[in-house]
């Protein structure tokens, strides 16, 4: 379980770094959109990178609840667990 959590956070940070290198080290509880300075197209870029790496589709509901890196990771972990048989 902890491995999965670590992997998700790594993927999320890598996706973020790809779009906004300076934001890679952002605090897990910092406001993601505001502090990382992503516009809506960049957010979709990041989501795509995460979806491709983890091979899953992140529903709008999950994104709408993700204010921070931690929040986004929790949401993604929940999705991964729900599809594990």
């Amino acid at each position, binding site marked *: 379980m902890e491995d999965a959590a670590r992997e998700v956070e790594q993927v999320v940070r890598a996706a973020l770094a790809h779009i906004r290198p300076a934001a890679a080290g952002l605090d897990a509880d910092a406001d993601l959109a505001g502090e990382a300075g992503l*516009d*809506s197209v960049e957010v979709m870029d990041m989501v795509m990178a995460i979806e491709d790496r983890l091979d899953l589709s992140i*529903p709008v509901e999950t*994104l709408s*609840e993700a204010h921070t890196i931690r*929040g986004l990771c929790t949401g993604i972990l929940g999705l991964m667990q729900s599809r594990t048989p």
Partner: protein
Amino acid sequence: MRGNPRVSETQEENTAVLEPTALREGPTATASGIPLRSADFATLAEALDYAATGDSGFNFYDGRGALTASLPYRELRARAVELARRLAPLGRGQRLALVADTHPDFAVMLYACQYAGLVPVPLPAAVHLGGREVYIRHLRKMMRDCEAVAAFAPPGFIGFLREATDGLPLTLSGTMDEFMALDAADELPAPPSADELAYLQYTSGSTRFPRGTMITQAAVMANLKAIFNHGFQLGDDDRFCSWLPYYHDMGLVGIVLGCVATQRSVDYLPTRDFAMRPRLWLTLISRNRCTVSFSPPFGYTLCARRLRSGDAEALDLSAWRVAGVGAEMIHPESLERFAELLAPAGFKASSFLPCYGMAECSLAVSFAPLERGASSDWVDIDALSREGVAHPLAAADAGQRKAFINCGVPLPGYEVEIRDEAGRALPERHCGRIFLRGPSLMSGYFANEEASREVLSADGWLDTGDLGYAVDGALHITGRAKDLMIIKGRNIWPQDLEHLAEQQPEVRPTDSSAFSITDGDDEEMAVLVVQTRETDASKLALLADRLQEKIHAEFGIQCLIELVVPHTLPRTSSGKLSRSSARKEFVERRRHDADESPTCFITDETLFRPLARAAAPELALSVGS
């Protein structure tokens, strides 16, 4: 697994609804098998009645380009009629709110409303990262504004809808399955007549004060008929492809309603998937040999940016004969770049079809001539900003020039007048406010007489709020008289940004001014200048930070924020803040390197890297207002 039955249940419901269509082998055919009729119907229901006798229809694709469902018009009609018997008891003329996600159920609900005599109200299906609360508030506001009696959302949005309708006096707020479970009336009510409302569409208006344009059957049919007989004509080989959201006029009226009214097959890519993988749009066009596809200029720019080497060679866009461009200011450079990159795929720049329109006119006002591409009128910037006259200026002439796109002459039956500030009609090449009269104008904004009176005169003229000039009757749009900003395809009202700023404890009412500037790349960028008595640098940084965060959550954009001392913002003689003067002074301050001024604190690259470019000194004022 524990905690998940709800999720799998939703998925099952979803599959059950789509099953009959999802099993079909491929997308609907391009050839409808029936004689093409170009939107010559009295109502939307009548248009579907005819389309349902052929083989064409809607096709839905996912983010990997796989067909997830196809909905032939025959089946769309059958399902819509079946559902209409359950909707009819909600009451004729009542509003049914529909979260307009790109999903077959939306199309069924939209047409079921037509057969049931209800007025569908498409609502946005777009949420920002971390924007749940904001989105729910917007949905709720619109549902209250249109006095909806029921509300629908496809499975992916039902959670938002349920929360947004909590406590509202609705008969039902649910998915397709829940609506289908309503008691059915024995027979269908009489079909809507031409003077009844066809739909109510929220304009890109302010998020605090949404405005729903009331469009009658006669109005929308008149516009569709003009578009597909005079804007561009269709043939049996024509097939559409679209990623445009169903809650915008171009996607809803032009594509969803337009394709049914002309019996054309469409391949739909959800807007969200387009935003993630813009190249998929081109892949679908190539694979299905689509001939017609529209986009705001922004979509072409996004595609051009994402193309990788070798992409163009793998695509065949030679069938794409109408590449419509509209919905925001068109900058020729972005189109040129797109055409250049995709020439190896057989894309022809002459396919670009610039057009001009607005939801208040149902959709379209004018189209440029077909097969000529986007043609630019080069004018003297100086003369335009000083005298308001668009003097042609050749490249060899001295002076700075700027190109405006020819958006064509108004469709037959429509009159356009360009007026000065005193309301007098202006001659050709004189820039002024665009007024419009014609058969497809809205009846007004729903339950908002004041706003309706502001834009619609007693003798039937609509104040479009746009600025432009005419050359041989062809419209050239130069900007907006109203203060609407369009940032990366998103409509933002300055008063909404100002309102947000003034909610902060450090900011008093009328202490902020929002406007947009055009950066070095000709892209529009939002600016918010805020007066505050706070002087502590770290507290100022916190305020800028907080504003940035809130603006992002609410509007999904980046905004350049400038904090200034009181009495910096210019006021008119009557004491009102002037956004245009505020903008002028802002640009001046930036030219004089405001970073060194002790009275001014601005978000810049040291704080917000993405803004580094906008903070560069090559800021240019956009011309026209």
